[in-house]
């Protein structure tokens, strides 16, 4: 029914991207799901941190939406929307956050560190920039194996852009001429640190030239722009153009994690155009362009609420991992396990 509405709308209205409604649904699902996670966290139901992508949903969803089955996606901590767009089941997320032994990480790692390398989604480590070169390696190997038409996309923030690993990874991607897209979101705070203590160049997108990338900027609060610009970057990389750097601008509308009240965010910055919330803005466009009416939106919300509740309820009923049943073996070859007396 939603697809019918989308098709009907896109034939009469050409101003929005063809994936606009599909993207919005994932963004909304992300927002609803993350609000649920935050409430579970406040209720003491989640051990460890909860990291939200609030405000970043449009950028993130566009990162996942143009990737295909044999592509590589290395998301970071605010990429729930992108992960869902790439095909990660909501249940995997609920299981990881709630510590189910049936989750992809089986309690060995938590929250945003989940991944499924076999499905092309890498499991991030916390050290920022470290995943860029890993994506390069995946792409290099695909080329060596004779695969064609693939692309890799990884995300980073304006804070992560300042690590040595990011520099090495971005450079080696260009040297190896692999089809990589790096989407950097400047959310204006790296944990609590604002831009002026993070970098001193005029615009991070200027670095594209220095690395031999093609660069573009995007307003992360405008879904159509995100879809068009990130979609084009993916298309360009797939077509054999140089690696792509997309720099998006938004304000993080949550703390670094749910433990953080973000009291360091200034009133001035909250009034900046990039600080607006992309969800209501997108919803308004949907109504204005008549992609859906209020009733349609209401129905979408109800469906999403049911999906989220189901994923959380399922994961909550599952068993937690048990230390005595764990094999405590970090190498795959059992004969090479160091037998410490």
């Amino acid at each position, binding site marked *: 029914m939603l697809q019918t509405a989308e098709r009907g709308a896109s034939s009469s209205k050409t101003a929005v991207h063809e994936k606009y409604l599909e993207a919005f649904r994932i963004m909304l699902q992300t927002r609803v799901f993350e609000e649920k996670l935050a409430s579970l966290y406040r209720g003491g139901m989640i051990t460890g941190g909860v990291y939200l992508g609030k405000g970043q949903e449009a950028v993130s969803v566009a990162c996942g939406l143009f990737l295909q089955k044999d592509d590589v996606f290395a998301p970071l901590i605010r990429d729930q929307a992108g992960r869902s767009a790439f095909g990660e089941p909501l249940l995997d997320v609920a299981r990881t956050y709630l510590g189910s032994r049936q989750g992809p990480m089986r309690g060995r790692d938590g929250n945003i560190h989940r991944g499924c390398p076999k499905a092309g989604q890498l499991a991030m480590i916390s050290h920022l920039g470290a995943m860029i070169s890993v994506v390069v390696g995946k792409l290099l190997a*695909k080329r060596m194996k004779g695969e064609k038409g693939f692309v890799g996309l990884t995300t980073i923030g304006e804070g992560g852009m300042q690590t040595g690993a990011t520099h090495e990874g971005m450079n080696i991607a260009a040297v190896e001429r692999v089809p990589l897209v790096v989407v950097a979101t400047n959310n204006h705070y790296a944990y609590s640190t604002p831009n002026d203590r993070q970098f001193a160049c005029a615009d991070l997108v200027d670095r594209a030239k220095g690395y031999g990338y093609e660069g573009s900027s995007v307003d992360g609060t405008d879904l159509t722009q995100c879809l068009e610009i990130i979609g084009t970057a993916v298309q360009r990389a797939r077509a054999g153009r140089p690696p792509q750097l997309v720099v998006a601008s938004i304000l993080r509308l949550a703390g670094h994690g749910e433990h953080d009240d973000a009291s360091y965010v200034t009133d001035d910055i909250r009034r900046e155009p990039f600080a607006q919330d992309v969800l209501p803005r997108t919803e308004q466009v949907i109504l204005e362009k008549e992609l859906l009416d209020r009733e349609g939106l209401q129905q979408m919300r109800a469906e999403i609420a049911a999906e989220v509740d189901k994923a959380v309820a399922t994961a909550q009923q599952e068993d937690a991992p048990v230390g005595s049943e764990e094999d405590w073996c970090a190498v795959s070859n059992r004969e090479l396990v160091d037998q410490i007396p």
Partner: protein
Amino acid sequence: MSVTYLEAIREAQTYLLREDERVFIYGQDIAGKFGGAFKATKGLAEQFPGRVLNTPISEDAMVGTAIGAAMEGMRPIVEMQFADFSSIALNQILNNAGTQYWRTQTPCPITVRLPSGGTKGSGPFHSQSMEGIYSHYPGLVVLTPATVEDAYTMLIDAVAIDDPVIYCEHKYLYYHLKANALPKDKLPIGKARVVRPGRDLSIVTNSAMVHEALAVAQQFSADGIEIEVVDLRSVKPLDTDTVLASVARTGRLLCVGEAFPWGGVTAEVIARVASEGFHLLDAAPARINAKDTPIPYHPNLWSEHRPNAKTIAAKARQVLAE
């Protein structure tokens, strides 16, 4: 015909590139006519086009790229120009490669070759022995071949292993050590080797120090004292059984290592023997390592910084006198 330790490493890589299309070598200055700072890949880029690749000076990204390629089904060998520079790649090795299988059940079969250990005049940043650091972290296999034969077979085995392997090749042995031919047999990874049997003292060691220990054993033999020398070969996993069996025969233990003294391989061996074989010991176990300073440049200082036949012999006498 004779083959050096370095040639054995080159031959092993030739074999691997020839026999396994998943193998490629990734490192600085290794391709073209140059063939690496130590020529361990000389001629291989021409022989195997597109599979011996020069990288930028980016140790972190070299290993990260290898990790990605390994997860995609390849068998990359990373050549660090010197073991010391692998400190730049510690994060990728320890936190990305070392945790990958545990976290995601995805094997990460990379081999990182570390030209290790001291040679005259190499100084603080081209001489380090880093097997202790890598062994401390979970998820890695750490090898320290001490012979031409092991250099060959252990590198071939390293690439076959589905887990990340740190292969510490000793630069001092590159040209000093020669064998008549490449080996036909091999000892499995994870097994230590008794390289000289004895009854009075066990010296447990690895890498280049095996040869210092053998020199000491030979010298003591002239006085009727028989030292048993155990070459660990693999630091992780560590063959505790072979060490304990040796201590059971001799009742005395001296551990020798070229690395810095705080913690490390010698401390680990002593800890295991003390907890599992205390009753086998007739004297307190001892160890000798490099000094707790950066590795000096001048040969006069360097030869005193690392354990040598003289200092090992003095320590051995102490243990025997107890």
